[in-house]
């Protein structure tokens, strides 16, 4: 008997496949995020990566020295202000492809983490490099989420722009690092980033208050702890925002007289924290 209908068994199989497809799809996504497979690294690979990184770092340092030479050689502040460096020759942009390739060639090594750390700030400077930033963040979360050196990477995370990728990275590290000191650094950088724009200021403040409560003893940089650091940041959020009356300053002037900021009321005032170095 000839039949034109699909074989019932095949139909059943198709139905099952179709039903499973979306479930299977989302399941594999979850697996990728929650159960990453970090790169396994041998000692030889670690050494090779270190040697290559040191060589590249040396070339980068030399390029920076050369790039900034005109600024160093300027004799007066006027000369320095007049210098315009060519952004095309900026080592921060020039070395980006090479560093990115290095990070792909040496996954999981400590040297690669250093490269990824530099890539974050380089790729954050130009929106057209968003796709690089995305891959860099992915790689950090898969290969290095438990790495204690992640602290060096997130510690100054608030100096990068509050892009979706940077926020994602800091949130993930704050939630998932097993090291309290790394977590504290991530919470702090995240709080600073969110605190810097008006729409997210309230959340930023909450995070900084959490740092004050839970991570005050964690070292920030040199002698400073997060407890000391965050006190200033909370004061800034509460009293140094656009629209608030500037706090009073009373003290001695350079020429030895007592002066106070509020005596300048009635004029437009430019406050300039400066140093001639």
């Amino acid at each position: 008997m000839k039949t034109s209908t699909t074989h019932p068994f095949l139909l059943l199989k198709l139905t099952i496949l179709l039903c499973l497809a979306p479930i299977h799809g989302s399941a594999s996504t979850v697996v990728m995020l929650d159960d990453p497979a970090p790169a396994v690294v041998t000692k030889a690979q670690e050494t090779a990566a270190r040697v290559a990184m040191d060589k590249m770092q040396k070339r980068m340092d030399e390029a920076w020295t050369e790039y900034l030479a005109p600024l160093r050689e300027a004799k007066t502040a006027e000369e320095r202000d007049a210098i315009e460096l060519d952004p095309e020759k900026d080592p921060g942009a020039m070395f980006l492809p090479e560093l990115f390739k290095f990070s792909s060639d040496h996954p999981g090594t400590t040297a690669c983490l250093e490269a990824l750390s530099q890539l974050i700030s380089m790729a954050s400077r130009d929106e057209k490099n968003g796709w690089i930033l995305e891959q860099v963040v992915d790689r950090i979360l898969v290969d290095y989420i438990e790495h204690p050196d992640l602290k060096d990477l997130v510690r100054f995370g608030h100096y990068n722009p509050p892009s979706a990728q940077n926020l994602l990275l800091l949130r993930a590290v704050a939630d998932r690092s097993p090291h309290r000191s790394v977590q504290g650094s991530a919470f702090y950088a995240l709080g600073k980033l969110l605190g810097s724009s008006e729409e997210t200021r309230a959340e930023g403040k909450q995070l900084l208050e959490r740092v004050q409560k839970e991570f005050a003893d964690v070292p920030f940089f040199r002698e400073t702890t997060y407890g000391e650091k965050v006190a200033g940041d909370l004061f800034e959020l509460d009293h140094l925002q656009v629209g608030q009356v500037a706090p009073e300053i009373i003290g001695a002037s350079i020429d030895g007289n007592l002066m106070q900021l509020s005596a300048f009321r009635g004029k437009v005032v430019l406050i300039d924290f400066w140093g001639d170095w």
Partner: protein
Amino acid sequence: MYPHERSLVKKHPADQFAIVGINSEDTIEAAREAVEKNKLTWKSFFDGGGTDGPIATRWNVSGWPTTYLLDEHGVIRYKDVRGETLDAALETLIDQWKAAREAEAKL
């Protein structure tokens, strides 16, 4: 920054605009030298020596220069604006200052 600041002080009359510096030089001697060398005509607080002085600490300053632009009521209106952005911001506040004086004159 200094040439730009000097030009602003030159451009805007002293009853409308002033620069108030907070200096973080290590010593008062170095601060005095810096004032002379850069021909600064405006006044600066001396923050006790170094970048962790009481004023910079309270104002949570971590980079130099850091600037705040205040209106005539002492309200912070702009933070860390430089170059042409600073010129435009200052122009806005000076216009408001002038408008306020005109409004007072009509009373």
